[in-house]
C-alpha cells in the first residue's frame, strides 16, 4: 500500500526536462518577438485606418481568440501542408502558429494602449510641430508602452505556458520531455511534480523580471 516517491529515474533523465525547458523558452521568445511585430503593426494600422481595415483586423483577432490554440496547432501542422504546398518541421510549424496566435492577443493589448494615450499629449505633439510619424514614434508609442506594460507581462507569461501545447505535435519541449519520462519510467507523480516546479520557477522568474522593468518605466501620472 501507498506510493513511495522515487526521484532517481527523473534525475537520470533530467536532460530531457532541461533541454525541453530551453526549447520551450526558445519557442516562446521567437513567437512573442514575431507576435509583438504583428501586434504593433496591426494596432498602429487599426487606430488610423478606415472601417474596412478595422473590420479585417478585428476579424483576425476574434477568430484567434475564439478558437482553442491546440486546434490551431493541428490545423497549421497537419492541415495546411495538405492544402497548400508548404513543408516545415514541427517546431517551425508551432512557432508559426504561436506567432499568429500571440499577434492577435497583442494587437488587442497595443490597440487599447494606443487608444488610452491622453488626447492632450497628442495635441502637445502637434502643437510643437511634430509630423504624424514623429508623434507616433516619440509621443504615442512611448506612452502606450508604459500604459500596457502590466498587461503585456501577463500576456507574455501566458504565452510561455502555451508552449506546452507543442507537445501534441511531438516538439520536444518541457511537457513533451515530461511525457517521455512518464512513458519510459512510469514515475508519473515525480515527473509531473518536477515539471510543474520548473514551469513555476521559470514563470515566476519571468514575471519578477518584467515587474522590475515595469517599475522602472512606471507610467507617470
Amino acid at each position, binding site marked *: 500500500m501507498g506510493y513511495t516517491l522515487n526521484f532517481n529515474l527523473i534525475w537520470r533523465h533530467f536532460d530531457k526536462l532541461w533541454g525541453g525547458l530551453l526549447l520551450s523558452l526558445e519557442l516562446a521568445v521567437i513567437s512573442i518577438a514575431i507576435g509583438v511585430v504583428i501586434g504593433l503593426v496591426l494596432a498602429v494600422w487599426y487606430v488610423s485606418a478606415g472601417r474596412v481595415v478595422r473590420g479585417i483586423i478585428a476579424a483576425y483577432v476574434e477568430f484567434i481568440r475564439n478558437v482553442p490554440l491546440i486546434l490551431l496547432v493541428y490545423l497549421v501542422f497537419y492541415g495546411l501542408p495538405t492544402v497548400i504546398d508548404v513543408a516545415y518541421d514541427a517546431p517551425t510549424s508551432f512557432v508559426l502558429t504561436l506567432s499568429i496566435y500571440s499577434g492577435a492577443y497583442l494587437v488587442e493589448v497595443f490597440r487599447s494602449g494606443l487608444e488610452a494615450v*491622453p488626447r*492632450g*499629449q497628442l*495635441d*502637445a*505633439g*502637434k*502643437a*510643437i*510641430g*511634430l*509630423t*504624424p510619424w*514623429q508623434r507616433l514614434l*516619440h*509621443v504615442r508609442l*512611448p*506612452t502606450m508602452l*508604459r500604459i500596457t506594460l502590466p498587461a503585456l507581462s501577463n500576456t507574455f507569461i501566458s504565452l510561455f505556458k502555451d508552449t506546452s501545447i507543442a507537445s501534441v505535435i511531438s516538439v520536444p519541449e518541457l511537457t513533451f520531455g515530461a511525457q517521455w519520462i512518464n512513458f519510459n519510467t512510469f514515475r508519473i507523480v515525480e515527473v509531473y511534480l518536477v515539471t510543474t516546479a520548473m514551469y513555476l520557477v521559470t514563470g515566476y522568474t519571468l514575471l519578477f523580471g518584467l515587474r522590475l522593468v515595469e517599475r522602472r*518605466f512606471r*507610467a*507617470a*501620472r
Partner: protein
Amino acid sequence: MSADTNALLDVRDVSKAFGSVAVLRNVSLEVKRGEVVTVIGPSGSGKTTLLRCVNFLESYDSGSIRIDGKEVGFREPGTRQRRSERDLAGMRAETGMVFQSFNLFPHLTAAGNIMLGLTKVRGKSQAEARQIAEHWLGRVGLAHKADSLPAELSGGQQQRVGIARAVAMEPKILLLDEITSALDPELVGEVLAVVRSLAEDGMTMLMVTHEMAFARDASSRIVFMADGGVSAVGPPKEILAAETSNERLRSFLARFRASHF
C-alpha cells in the same frame, strides 16, 4: 487680405459648428506683433475652440486665419483645401501653445520635453537643444529640475515647463489656453509671473483666462466672447468697467465678481 493692418494674427469671419451647434460665429480679431490679447467670456462661448483653430488643432467651416499673412490650415489662396499633414506640422511650429492640463510628455524629463521639438522639428543637435532647454528652464525658475520627470513636479512647475517648451521653439505667437485653471490657487502666481515676464520681453500672445486681475494688468486688449461671437473688444479698462453698456458683458462681469470675490 488685410494689407492695411500689420496684424501678426488675423482671424477673419471664422465660423465653426459641431453638428447643429454653432461654436464660432463670424469671429474676427487681430493680434499685432508684441500685443497681448486676452479672450474672456462664459464657458461654452467658444474661447478655447478659437484658440485651437489658430494652430489648426481644430478645423473651421468658413473664414480665414492667417499668421504673418500665411493661411494656417488651408492652401492658398482662400481654398478649402486642407494643407498636407507635413505642411501643417511646419505651420504649427510657428505657434506655441500652452495647455490647461499641461500635457507634458510623461516619459521625458523637463529638459527632454523642451528638447523634443528642438531636435526633431528645428533640427538642432542634442547638445545645442540641451543648452536652449537649460536656458529656458532657468528663465522659468526651474534650472534645478532639468532632469526631473513631469510626475516629480508640482502642477505649477509642470506648467512652467509647458511654457518653456512652447517658447523655446521661438514661436511667432504664443497661445495660452486657461493655463492656470487646473492649478491650486497658491501655484497660480508663479505661472502668471512667467507669462508677465514674457510679455515684457515683447512676446506676442493670445490667451484665454479667467484671471481677471491678470487680464487687466497684462493685456493690451481684451476680447469678450459670448455665444461663439465677439461681443466686445477694447482696452482692459474699457472692457472691465462695471458701467459698460454691453448687457451680456455686464452680466458676465457681475456674475464673475459675485463668484470670485
